């Protein structure tokens, strides 16, 4: 029986490696990951599922002594791929109509200002939906604070391509929104 106990103890000990890094990352990155996934078109339930899965995979990755370099980009990549696997729902938010514009108006705004803000968001939403999927993804990851190199790793494209895509996408939005 004591032999069994030793065999059971091993995996538990191994799991504790890197657990504290995972906790810090969880606090820091849960929100940005959720936001990214929701903006990609996942429902908030799906996004939570994906984020949970991503952190479990990270936990296993760290526990098995996986590389600790650029965990942020790694997590976004895992989450992105998981979201891709749910392709049937993917892209729904930006391609189908969104009511984000309706809720975007801050409460302190005066009525005139509120109308203006709402119009601005509707215009922006329309412009965003006209972007290509890759342009949207680049902008979303950029808004999540990722460097171009990290964005390239998440999407599996070259850093220079990210540079060009972000440049093109921002200019399209600026043009359509007349700013």
């Amino acid at each position, binding site marked *: 029986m004591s032999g069994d106990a030793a065999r059971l103890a091993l995996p538990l000990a191994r799991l504790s490696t890197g657990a*504290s890094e995972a906790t810090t990352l969880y606090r820091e990155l849960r929100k940005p990951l959720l936001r990214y996934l929701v903006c990609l078109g996942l429902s908030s*339930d799906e996004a939570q599922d994906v984020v949970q899965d991503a952190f479990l995979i990270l936990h296993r990755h760290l526990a098995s002594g996986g590389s600790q370099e650029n965990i942020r980009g790694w997590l976004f990549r895992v989450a992105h791929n998981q979201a891709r696997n749910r392709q049937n729902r993917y892209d729904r938010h930006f391609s189908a109509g969104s009511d984000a514009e309706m809720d975007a108006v801050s409460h302190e705004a005066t009525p005139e200002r509120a109308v203006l803000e709402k119009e601005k968001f509707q215009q922006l939403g329309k412009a965003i939906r006209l972007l290509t999927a890759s342009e949207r993804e680049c902008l979303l990851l950029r808004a999540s604070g990722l460097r171009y190199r990290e964005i390239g790793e998440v999407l599996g494209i070259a850093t220079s391509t990210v540079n060009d895509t972000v440049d093109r996408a921002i200019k399209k939005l600026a043009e359509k929104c007349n700013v």
Partner: protein
Amino acid sequence: MCDFSGKLIAWLDHELPAEEAADVERHLVICAECRSGVEAYKRVSGEFDAYCDAAMASNARRGALRWAAVASAAGAVAALVALFMAIPRTRVEPPESHAQQTTVATSPAIVAAEVPDSVRPTIRRVHRRQAMAPVQIQDANAPPAQNQNAYLPPDGPMIRIAIPADEMFPPGAVPEGMHFVADLTIAADGSAERLRLRPRLAGFERRTTLP
């Protein structure tokens, strides 16, 4: 169109090498067109960010509304269950001792070795043929484990133990509300054949229905 216009956004994002960045900065001093371009790109970036926040917020609100409905439905189910439980039944309960259960959970690695016989009956072996919910030994403080999902017992007896993560890791090392469910298979000679640890986050469980 100015030659520098293709570098302005990369410059804003601090993605240019130092030398090129310095070039852009020198250029911005003398080029009004590029200065206004930078302003516009900055504004659009900020608005894109705000748009994402708004999308996230409106999504969360919809989620909250749906959860309110689920919660009230759950309340009704709980009431029904309570009613059902109130009907007296003759049933032999396994000995309940919270203190002993906690001891078991505190040292999951030595469950097999050190559990006194008096605690044993709470670890029941479940045979597939009995087709009943797996037994869980759990700290009362730990969130309920999700046991109704798709896990089917392997061939042979199965014991399931839910272990609060606090018992395995130093305090604060694991995200709050996280615990583990261990599925282990015991061979005919009583040795542990297979151990599968599955982390769980409370209030964050996978839904049992797949899309």
